[in-house]
């Protein structure tokens, strides 16, 4: 079940990515609508992060191409924002929370220019949005996992983009933070931004996203929630983990899951 859309904000065409000759993404072909909150689901090693990284040009595809806003990546870098996995950096780096969020403004500043008052005001505003105003001058080495994640999201907000790609922003954060981040993402998509999130917890995903991409090396499904969150497609995505899946379908039944009602 792969639904293609008209005027996609992101178009991935026949994308194949391999590491050392073994493919980690196989022939992925999809298009995404603007203004949606989109979840990428799949088991470990399904290629979820690789998909985002190849959209961001961090991974070289063996074949296929990616178009954003109907253009190449280089033409629209300023309109795309990226939240890497929290573990991808060393948080002992000598910087304050504000320093890291200011890095989100570097792309638009260009070479040689330093962030000034305008950038600082923007960064403070973004920290406010993620509820980190009290930690502006805190050293990043003193933050908890959830706080680090919120700093990364604030940095992405400071990029002032139209399309946000987030790699596991909910990994290792507590329930409160997860709910707060999700509320923020909802507000962003209501404001016309497109947010694509790699997520590993299918239980909460069902509640969070309105468009789903299901991956397991191949693309299993891409489409609106009511059309793709079915037991059959989840089974195809997660393979033989039946135990897990029956729990999900149970969950869906319990909630009288009806997408038309919202």
């Amino acid at each position, binding site marked *: 079940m792969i639904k293609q859309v008209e005027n996609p904000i992101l178009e991935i065409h026949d994308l194949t990515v391999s590491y050392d000759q073994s493919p980690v993404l196989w022939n992925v072909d999809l298009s995404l609508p603007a203004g949606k909150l989109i979840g990428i689901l799949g088991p470990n090693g399904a290629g979820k992060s690789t998909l985002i990284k190849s959209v*961001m040009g961090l991974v070289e595809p063996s074949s296929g191409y990616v178009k954003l806003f109907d253009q190449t990546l280089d033409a629209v870098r300023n309109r*795309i924002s990226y939240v*890497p996995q929290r573990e991808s*950096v060393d948080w002992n780096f*000598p910087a304050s929370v504000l320093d890291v969020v200011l*890095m*989100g403004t570097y792309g638009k500043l260009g070479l040689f220019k330093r962030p000034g008052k305008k950038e600082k005001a923007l960064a403070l505003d973004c920290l406010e949005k993620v*509820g980190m105003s009290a930690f502006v001058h805190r050293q990043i080495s003193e933050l908890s996992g959830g706080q680090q994640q919120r700093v990364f999201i604030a940095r992405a907000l400071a990029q002032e983009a139209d399309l946000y790609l987030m790699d596991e922003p909910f990994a290792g954060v507590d329930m409160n933070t997860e709910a*707060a981040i999700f509320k923020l993402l909802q507000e962003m998509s209501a404001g016309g931004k497109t947010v694509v999130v790699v997520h590993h917890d299918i239980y909460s995903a069902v509640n969070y996203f309105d468009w789903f991409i299901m991956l397991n090396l191949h693309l299993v499904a891409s489409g609106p929630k009511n059309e793709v969150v079915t037991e059959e497609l989840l089974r195809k995505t997660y393979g033989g983990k039946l135990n897990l899946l029956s729990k999900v379908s149970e969950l869906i039944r319990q909630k009288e899951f009806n997408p038309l009602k919202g």
Partner: protein
Amino acid sequence: MMSFDQNAFLIIFTASMIAISCGLLGVFMMLRKMSMTGDAISHAVLPGIVIGFLVSGTQRGLEVIIGAGILGILATLMIDWLRKKARVQLDASIGITFTLLFAIGIILISVFAYRVDLDQECVLYGEIAYLPIDLWISSSGQSFGPRIMWLAILNLLLVGVFITLFYKELKITSFDEKFGIVIGIPASAINLGLMSMVSYTTVSSFEAVGAILVVALLVVPPATAYLWTRDLRPLIQLTILTGILVSVVGYYLAYLFDSSIAGMMVTVAGIVFFLSVILTHKKFKFSLGTQKETQPFSS
């Protein structure tokens, strides 16, 4: 007996310039977890120096600096290639690369010994004590002072300009290189620029202080400063101060014991580092008791 004459000043001043240049670059090498790459570069430039020397016929030629620069970048690329393409561990690829290139340099020196006024001793240890008698004399016969001092000043100037111009880019690519690439920062150019500066600094300093002290100055002052602060600006300032302290104390201790200045500077740097470890360890224990505040989430 302590003394402060013009020669002492010149030596301390030059050593401080070199220490600051190395420290400034060393901060970013450390933050990129590439301190040992700096070590590798400082040894790997040797064949470049010898080839440059053979081409130009003098230690002072531009060819020497260019040769060293090329070898420094070659070493960086080789380490990178071994690690990424041949899947060799980082420490092993550094070890293989710089010993190989350094050995080639040693062979070149011994083969062309009759034409090259260079020896391994000089390359490894340097001799800053001879600095006041190696003067820069213009064609009209006027003396401008020690040649190596001018090299050190020029070096610091270039390093300072490089870091000031690309401060933002160096910072972001050191913290989160991938994010830097995504927002369009030319990360590999910045990296090569930094490596070139390290190569150049190595060459411009090795005559005075030798490759071993260059490595010590690249690694130890930043590592010492990092024990005391977790903020980039103070880290850089503290690195500079440590570099100067090491130069001053190192010089006078060498004078006192009538020994090698470069050797004494490395020793002082090591002692300062270990003192810092002990002192900051106590500070850390102390601060543990006072820093436990709960941070409520406000959204």
